[in-house]
């Protein structure tokens, strides 16, 4: 009997997009990793949009982008908690802006300290985390998750931010083994804290690497498999966003997305954005189908080369 137990292999955590989607439900609180338009689990974002999930609460890095704007565009979102939501030098987030101005989504205005402080409270098992760094900002007046209080030591009032605990974190790393031990080529931004604060972690990766490779250099593991519920292998899964050191963001594609969104929102004619959503979100049957539609291997090779050379062309 004991030898039987011993002979059981360690369970793999590899899953499909469909498997991962089975963990996402209406009205969940979902957190995305990455930063700006870096390391976004974009293909999972499109899959969630395609599944017509509704009523999501979103947070993640204090600087969010494509992932949130797209989910707002398809009406999947009830509430966002975010610092900056935009596309950096490419402009503001059109669907987010419009939704706030129309009042169709709820926003909790935050920043790095309120979001990361909220995750840290959860991670440290406490109901709130002290921060001092938003004193004087009107955020203190309008955010429901912060308040001033008198601390047990010191004379000055400080700010408390309530614990944030997402139901599921969806992260994109460059590589992981089948047990979910993930490595990042470069900075993981806030992914570690987001992973720790979330009840479950879904990881999408450009590449699956062998466990032997991971085990030989344990200091390279950024998110240990211990915390990971499922790993989904999605080559170029961050497209049109950037995956650090693997490929740059697809500037032309993002510009097209922003432009079509702006056209639809301004004119009140939703056709340009609908066309985008049909072609890239609703119709694609797999990551490879999607990649073919955005330029296939030729385009991906170009985006990889641009990252390698460190310039735009």
């Amino acid at each position: 009997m004991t030898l039987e137990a011993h002979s059981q292999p360690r369970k793999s955590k590899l899953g499909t997009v469909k498997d991962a989607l089975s963990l996402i439900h209406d009205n969940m609180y979902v957190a995305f990793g990455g930063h700006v338009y870096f390391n976004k689990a974009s293909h999972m974002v499109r899959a969630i949009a395609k599944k017509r999930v509704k009523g999501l609460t979103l947070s993640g890095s204090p600087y969010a982008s494509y992932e949130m704007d797209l989910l707002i565009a398809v009406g999947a979102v009830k509430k966002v908690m975010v610092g900056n939501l935009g596309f950096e030098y490419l402009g503001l987030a059109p669907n987010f802006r419009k939704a706030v101005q129309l009042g169709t989504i709820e926003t909790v205005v935050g920043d790095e300290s309120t979001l990361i402080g909220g995750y840290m409270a959860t991670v440290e098992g406490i109901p709130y985390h002290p921060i001092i760094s938003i004193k004087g900002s009107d955020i203190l007046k309008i955010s429901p998750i912060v308040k001033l209080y008198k601390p047990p030591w010191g004379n000055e009032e400080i700010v408390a931010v309530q614990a944030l605990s997402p139901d599921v974190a969806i992260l994109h790393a460059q590589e992981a083994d089948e047990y979910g031990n993930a490595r990042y080529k470069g900075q993981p931004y806030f992914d570690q804290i987001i992973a720790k604060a979330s009840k479950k972690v879904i990881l999408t990766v450009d590449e699956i690497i062998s466990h032997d490779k991971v085990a030989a250099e344990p200091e390279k593991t950024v998110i240990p498999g211990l915390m990971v519920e499922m790993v989904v292998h999605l080559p170029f899964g961050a497209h049109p966003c950037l995956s650090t050191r693997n490929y740059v963001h697809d500037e032309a594609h993002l510009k097209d997305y922003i432009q079509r969104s702006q056209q639809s929102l301004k004119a009140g004619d939703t056709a340009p954005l609908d066309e985008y959503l049909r072609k890239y979100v609703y119709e694609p049957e797999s990551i490879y189908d999607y990649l073919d539609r955005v330029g296939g291997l030729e385009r991906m090779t170009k985006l990889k080369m641009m990252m390698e050379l460190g310039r735009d062309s």
Partner: protein
Amino acid sequence: MTPKQPDYSWAEQMVVVFARDLKDDDVAMMGGARHDIPFAAVMLAKNLYCPNMNVITTGCYINPTLTAMHYSGHTSVLYSKEADGMISGYDIFEVSERGYISFFFYHGIQLDKYGNVNLHFIGDWKKPTVRGPGAVNISMSVTPPRHYLFPIRHNKRAFVDKVDFITLPGYLDGGDSRKKAGLKGGGPCLCVSPLGVFDFEEKSKRMRLKSVHEWVTVKEIVDNTGFELIIPENAPATKPPTPEELRMLREKIDPTGILRGMAGRL
């Protein structure tokens, strides 16, 4: 009737009782100043019963491919170069505060009928007659769902009615006093000594004899315990190590016989 002399050591008996109590979905943390019995128990469970149990070592790997035991627990871990990943000082702080791990093992210089443990002072803490080693991490007795006690000496100096100083809270004053004090974790679930196995009675939280090691009598336990144990009518014998358990221990985990040569017991 003198019980037969077994062909395994009291430390090996302790190890197998603990190993059998661990679960495949546990997140184990091993460490502390005394690592031998916890180390062997976790490794035995991982190898025989719980292939998916996640193991965190305090110094400081996740799921390392451990080599055989060394007298130094920290060196044992260090000699093992393969692992899923490493844990940082931040992780240790967070895991401790949050109660993320499933269990931890503690021993002590005194423990009492409610499972409170003293690692600090015998006598008045301001001028103690003995200054114990202290504790690296108290948290593991406060926040995780359960913890284990592994006293390696079972005598009246170690098993006392009330500890001089509570380093590690057990059930405090018994009953629901632990819960009332707002401690998050479940408390000590099992105490295995060189003489027997003990748990804590559900309501009073007083220590209760669960089983008697093969070569020990109930009287011997009672005579060496400084407080009144709850003794069930027919205390069964502790199930001794199986041949598979002993083989795994002696061939793979403890080939140099640290568990067979340990000082302690009474």
